C-alpha cells in the first residue's frame, strides 16, 4: 500500500509522484472516452464539498464514472445546513459507512487530515482553505510531463506567489525533480521569505523579470492576481497590467515553451494566447481526469498490495 489517503503533496516522495503520473498515462485513453474500462464498477465516491468548486467536483465525478464507479454529491449548500448541527467528524463517520472513498473540500486548513482520522475509507483532499490541494499539483506535474519535460525543467512561476496555495504546493513538488525555478511577481506578492529560503536549500531558484527569462524557459506557469489582495483598485490595475501574458511577448519564447494556468483566469492571460500552440491551460484542466482516475484506482483497488 503506497498510501491510504491523499492529503498533502508533502506526504509523497518523488517515487510516489512518478508512480501516479505513470498510472495516469495508462488511463488517458479512457479519460478521453476513446476506450472503455470499468475497474471501479460497484464502487461509490462521495463528494463532500463544504465550499463551492464546480470544476474540481466535476473532474472527480468524471474520473469515477469513466472507470465505471458511481458518485453521490453533497453540495456546498447542503453541507452548510449539515454543518450547523453536526461536526465534520460525525459527518465523515456517517459518510464513510456509505461510500468507498470520500473527496473533501472544506474551508478550514487541516480539515482533510482530521477527516482521514475519522474515516474508515480513503479521504482525498480537494482543497482545505488556504492549505493543500494535492490533486491540482499532481495534474500540473502530469501536464509538464506530457507537454514539456520534467527532466532538466526550467519553469517560471508568475503572479501571486505570496498567497497562492497552488504555487506553494507546485514549488515543493518541483524541488523533488530538481527543477530550475524562476519567480516573477510584484514585490508585494513575492514568495514569503521563509519559504524562499527553504526552497533555496533544495533547488535552484531565482527572482527575475519575465523579459529576462522568456527565451530560456520551458514552462510559464501563470496564476491569478486577486483584486482583494490590494488596498486600492488603482494599485491593483497597475500591478495586474504588468503581469499579463499576451501573444506579443510569447514571440520571444522557445518554440516548445508552454503556458499553464490553474484556471479560472481573469485577464492575466490575454485571449490572443489561446489560439497559439503555447496555450496548454485547457489541456491542463482535462489532465485532472486521468490523474484523478489514477488516484482513485490506487486508493480503491491497489490498497492491499505492496
Amino acid at each position: 500500500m503506497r498510501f491510504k489517503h491523499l492529503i498533502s503533496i508533502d506526504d509523497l516522495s518523488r517515487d510516489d509522484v512518478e508512480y501516479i503520473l505513470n498510472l495516469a498515462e495508462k488511463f488517458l485513453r479512457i479519460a478521453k472516452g476513446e476506450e472503455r474500462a470499468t475497474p471501479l464498477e460497484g464502487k461509490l465516491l462521495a463528494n463532500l464539498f463544504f465550499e463551492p468548486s464546480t470544476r474540481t467536483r466535476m473532474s472527480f465525478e468524471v474520473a469515477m464514472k469513466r472507470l465505471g464507479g458511481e458518485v453521490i454529491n453533497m453540495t456546498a449548500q447542503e453541507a452548510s445546513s449539515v454543518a450547523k448541527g453536526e461536526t465534520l467528524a460525525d459527518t465523515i463517520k456517517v459518510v464513510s459507512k456509505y461510500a468507498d472513498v470520500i473527496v473533501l473540500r472544506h474551508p478550514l486548513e487541516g480539515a482533510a487530515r482530521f477527516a482521514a482520522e475519522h474515516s474508515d475509507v480513503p479521504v482525498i483532499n480537494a482543497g482545505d482553505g488556504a492549505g493543500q490541494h494535492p490533486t491540482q499539483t499532481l495534474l500540473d506535474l502530469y501536464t509538464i510531463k506530457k507537454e514539456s519535460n520534467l527532466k532538466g525543467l526550467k519553469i517560471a512561476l508568475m503572479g501571486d506567489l505570496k498567497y497562492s496555495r497552488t504555487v506553494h504546493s507546485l514549488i515543493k513538488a518541483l524541488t523533488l525533480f530538481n527543477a530550475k525555478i524562476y519567480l516573477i511577481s510584484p514585490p508585494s506578492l513575492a514568495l514569503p521569505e521563509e519559504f524562499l529560503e527553504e526552497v533555496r536549500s533544495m533547488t535552484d531558484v531565482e527572482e527575475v523579470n519575465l523579459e529576462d527569462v522568456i527565451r530560456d524557459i520551458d514552462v510559464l506557469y501563470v496564476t491569478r492576481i486577486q483584486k482583494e489582495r490590494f488596498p486600492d483598485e488603482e494599485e491593483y490595475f497597475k500591478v495586474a497590467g504588468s503581469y499579463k501574458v499576451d501573444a506579443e511577448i510569447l514571440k520571444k519564447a522557445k518554440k516548445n515553451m508552454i503556458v499553464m494556468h490553474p484556471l479560472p483566469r481573469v485577464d492575466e492571460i490575454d485571449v490572443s494566447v489561446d489560439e497559439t500552440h503555447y496555450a496548454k491551460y485547457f489541456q491542463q484542466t482535462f489532465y485532472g481526469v486521468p490523474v484523478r482516475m489514477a488516484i482513485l484506482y490506487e486508493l480503491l483497488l491497489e490498497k492491499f498490495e505492496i
Partner: protein
Amino acid sequence: MDSAKEGSLAVSKIKCGTVIDHINAGKALLVLRILGIKPGCSERVLIAMNVPSKKMGKKDIVKVEGKYIGEKELDRIALISPNATINLIDEYEVSEKRRVELPSTVEGILTCPNKNCITNSKEPIKSKFHIRRSGESVRAVCHYCGRKIYELDKYVV
C-alpha cells in the same frame, strides 16, 4: 555547583520538592503557570529571575516546596526552556537530577495561531505539533495545517 552559587543570593534551599534551574531568562512566571501555581495557592514557591549564569548569561530559577513535577509538565517546560534542569529535592539534598527533553510531538500543549486551522474549530480535536530543533532554535509545526511557530512560549496552553 554553579547553579547553587549563582542562585544563592536570591533563593534559599527547600526541604522537599522541585528545583527547576536554567530556565530561559524571564520565563519563570510561565513555568509557574505550567505547574498550575496560581495566585492564592498554598505552595511555598521561590522564584529568581534574571540571575547571572555562566552558561546562559541570565537565567531564571523556580523552587517549589512539596511538589514533584510530572512528565506532561516536563514536556511543556522543555518547549519554553529546552536547557532547563530539574532537581528533585528530598531532605535538602538532590535525590534525582533530570534534564528536560524536547518531545518529537506534543498534543494538547500548544495552540495553533492559525485561526483558520481545524484545531481552532468546534470539532472534537486536540492540537498536535511536531517539534523541530536546529541548534538553539526550536520550532513547532502544526500537524494539521502546517503552520510553523517559533516563539513557542506564546502558544503554550
